[in-house]
C-alpha cells in the first residue's frame, strides 16, 4: 500500500520506535524566539548539557519587540530583559541569532521560508503553534511547548505520537476577491476550532495547487486553528521556483540532488487517509469572523447565527462570545463600524500581501477615524516594500507602515487595540483579549481588511 506524504516524511525521521513508547523523531530545523525559549535554556544549564546540534537551531526576536524605533533600546523593562536573554542564551550555546537590527530579523515563520531555511521533506519545530506555516513547502512542521524545546535543544529529537492523517481537498476555482485566507477561514468555520484535533492535514485539490507559495503558507499557518497538529502541501514547481536561489537553499549539485528527492514527496495514489474532506472553491466568498474563536466565521454578506440555529449545548459559550464582541445573534456584520485595521502577522504580512493591499488602495485615502497599522513580517519584506514604493502608497493613504514583529497579533508589545474597539485583522486569532484587553477582533483577508480601511466599515470587497 502506498504512503501519504506525511508518512513518507515522518517515517524517514524516526530514530527510535519502541513498543509502548512515543516515537523519537529527528528534527532537521528548530526555530526559537524570545518568549518560549528562556526556560528551556535554563533547563540545559541545570542539567549541565550543551545544545546537541547548535547549527540546526535558528533564533529571532519577534513576539515582544516594538514596531517603532527598533534601533533604540526596548523601553519596556520585561520585554527588553526577555530579548536580552535570547541574545545571551544564543551566544552562550552557539546558536545563530537574527535579532533586532539584523537584516534577516522578522517573524519566525516569515523568515524561515524567505531565507530558504525551510525546505521540502524536513521536520521543523518551534515553540510556537503557527510552525504549521512551514508545511506549505511539504515539510512536517508543528508547534511545541517549552519542555519540548528543551528536548530538541538537548537531543535534536522530540518524542511524539504519530497523529492521524486527514486530507482536505479544495476543488475548482476561486471566485474574484477570494484569497487563500478566505479558503482557510471557510474550512475552519465548517469543521470548527477542534475539527482536526489529533490529525495532520494535507491540503490538496486544484484551488490549492493554483496558489502561490505565500498564499499556501497562509493556509498551512491556520491549520492549528482547527486543532490540527500541522498542515502540509505537496511540493511542486511553484515550490521549487520559490526556493531556488534563496540564501540558505541548496545550490549546484546539492540542488539537483535535493530536487530529485523533493520530487518523490507526494501522497501515493493508493495512500490511505483516516479522513477525507472536500470543499468546492466556488462556494467560498470573502470571509469574516464574528466570535471569539477562529471557527466562528462566515461569508462577509451573511448573518451571525440566530440563537435557535446554535445547538443547545453550545449556546452558553456562543452567548458569552457574542457578549464579549457586543454583537447580536442573527445580525449582519456588513456596514459595522470599525476602529482599527491590522495588516500583519505570520498569516498575512508577506510581500504579496503588502503588494495586494497597495494595489487596492493606491491613490485612495483611509476613512477618517480608522487607525491602520501595516506591520511587515520581516526586515526583508520591509526593505522590498520600500524598494517597490509601496511605503509611499501607504503613507499617501494614511496607513502606518511599521517595523517587523508579531505586533498586534498578540499585543505583547505596545501595539494593542484599546478596550471595546473593533479591529479587522489579518492575523489568525480572535480570542478574547488577544489584541489587547477587551479588544474585539474580526479576522479577514488582507483585501477585506484593506476595504474596511477605506470605508471604515465591514465591507464586501467585491462591491468596491
Amino acid at each position, binding site marked *: 500500500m502506498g504512503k501519504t506524504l506525511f508518512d513518507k516524511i515522518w517515517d524517514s525521521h524516526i*530514530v*527510535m520506535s519502541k513498543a*509502548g*513508547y*512515543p516515537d*523519537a523523531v*529527528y528534527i*532537521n*530545523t528548530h526555530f526559537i524566539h524570545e*518568549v*518560549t525559549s528562556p*526556560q528551556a535554556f*535554563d*533547563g540545559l544549564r541545570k542539567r549541565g*548539557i550543551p545544545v*546537541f546540534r547548535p547549527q540546526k537551531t535558528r533564533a529571532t526576536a519577534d*513576539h515582544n519587540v516594538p514596531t517603532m524605533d527598533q534601533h533604540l533600546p526596548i523601553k519596556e523593562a520585561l520585554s527588553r*530583559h*526577555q530579548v536580552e536573554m535570547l541574545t545571551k542564551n544564543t551566544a552562550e550555546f552557539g546558536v545563530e541569532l537574527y535579532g533586532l537590527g539584523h537584516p534577516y530579523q522578522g517573524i519566525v515563520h516569515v523568515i524561515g521560508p524567505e531565507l530558504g531555511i525551510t*525546505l521540502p521533506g*524536513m521536520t521543523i519545530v518551534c*515553540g*510556537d*503553534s503557527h510552525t504549521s506555516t512551514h508545511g506549505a513547502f511539504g515539510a512536517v512542521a508543528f*508547534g*511545541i*511547548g517549552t*519542555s*519540548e524545546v*528543551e*528536548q530538541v535543544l*538537548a*537531543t*535534536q*529529537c*522530540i*518524542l511524539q*505520537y504519530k*497523529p492521524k492523517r486527514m486530507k482536505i481537498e479544495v476543488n475548482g476555482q476561486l471566485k474574484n476577491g477570494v484569497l487563500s485566507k478566505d479558503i482557510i477561514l471557510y474550512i475552519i468555520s465548517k469543521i470548527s*476550532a*477542534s475539527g482536526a*484535533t*489529533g490529525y495532520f492535514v494535507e491540503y490538496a485539490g486544484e484551488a490549492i495547487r493554483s496558489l502561490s507559495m505565500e498564499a499556501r503558507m497562509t493556509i498551512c499557518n491556520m491549520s492549528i486553528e482547527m*486543532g490540527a*497538529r500541522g498542515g502540509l502541501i505537496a511540493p511542486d514547481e511553484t515550490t521549487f521556483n520559490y526556493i531556488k536561489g534563496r540564501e540558505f537553499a541548496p545550490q549546484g549539485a546539492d540542488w539537483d*540532488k535535493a530536487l530529485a528527492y523533493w520530487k518523490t514527496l507526494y501522497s501515493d495514489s493508493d495512500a490511505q487517509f483516516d479522513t477525507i474532506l472536500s470543499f468546492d472553491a466556488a462556494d467560498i466568498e470573502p470571509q469574516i469572523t464574528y466570535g471569539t*474563536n477562529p*471557527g466562528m466565521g462566515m461569508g462577509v454578506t451573511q448573518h451571525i447565527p440566530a440563537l435557535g440555529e446554535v445547538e443547545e449545548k*453550545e449556546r452558553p*459559550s456562543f452567548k458569552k462570545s457574542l457578549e464579549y464582541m457586543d454583537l447580536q445573534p442573527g445580525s449582519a456584520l456588513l456596514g459595522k463600524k470599525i476602529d482599527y485595521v491590522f495588516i500583519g502577522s505570520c498569516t498575512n504580512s508577506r510581500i504579496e500581501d503588502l503588494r495586494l493591499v497597495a494595489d487596492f488602495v493606491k491613490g485612495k485615502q483611509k476613512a477618517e477615524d480608522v487607525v491602520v497599522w501595516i506591520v511587515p513580517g520581516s526586515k526583508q519584506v520591509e526593505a522590498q516594500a520600500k524598494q517597490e514604493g509601496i511605503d509611499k502608497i501607504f503613507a499617501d493613504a494614511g496607513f502606518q507602515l511599521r517595523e517587523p514583529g508579531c505586533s498586534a497579533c*498578540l*499585543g*505583547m508589545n505596545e501595539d494593542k487595540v484599546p478596550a471595546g474597539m473593533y479591529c479587522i485583522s489579518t492575523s489568525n*486569532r480572535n*480570542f*478574547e*483579549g*488577544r489584541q489587547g*484587553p*477587551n479588544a474585539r477582533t474580526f479576522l479577514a483577508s488582507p483585501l477585506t481588511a484593506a476595504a474596511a480601511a477605506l470605508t471604515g466599515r465591514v465591507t464586501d470587497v467585491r462591491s468596491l
Partner: protein
Amino acid sequence: MSKIFQHLISTAVPVPIENIDTDQIIPARFLKATTRDGFGENLFRDWRFDANNQPKADFVLNNSMYSGKVLVAGKNFGCGSSREHAAWAIADYGFKVVVSSFFADIFKNNALNNFILPVQVSEDFLDSIFRAIEADPQTQIEVDLENQFISIKATGEKESFDINPYKKTCLLNGYDDIDYLLSLRQEIGQYETTREFNF
C-alpha cells in the same frame, strides 16, 4: 519537579465554557517572565480581574465556595497558542488534574510534561460532574491514576480514562522525556550518519 500523586480525592472548580484557549488561561502580556514560577497569579487573569485589577465577583476562582486540585472545563480545553505558560499557570495555582471532554493536542503534552494529569471524559460524564458541583460545591471527585478511573464520590458515578502507558510511568515516577531522549544519544548520532538528506 515534584512527582505527581497516584490517587487524589478533592473538591473541584468548574469552568463550564467550551474552547478555552491558552490566551484566556494566561494572556500574552504575562509571558515576559524568563522562569517558570509565579504564573498562577495570572491564571485566567482577564476573567478573574477587571481593568482596575479588582476581582470579578461572578468568576468561579473568586468564589470561596469553590476550590480544590481539580479543574473541570468544557470541551476543547487548551486550544490555540502552544505556550507552556498555560500549564505552568495551572500547576502554580495548585491544580493537579484538568478534566474535560476534549483537549487540544499541544496543551495535553504541555500538561503531562508538567505533571498535570489531563483526564478526558465523555460529554455525559462531564455534564454529570458539572451538575454534581452545581448541586453541591463540596462534591468530592476521585482520580486514580494507577487504575485509570475518575468518580464522583456522592453519586458513585465512575468512568475510566485513557493514558498512554509510557506517560503513565513518567507521571507515576516523575521521569521526563528528556531523560529518555538523552539515553538515546548514541542512536541519534547513528541515525544522522544514515541520512542522505541531512539538510
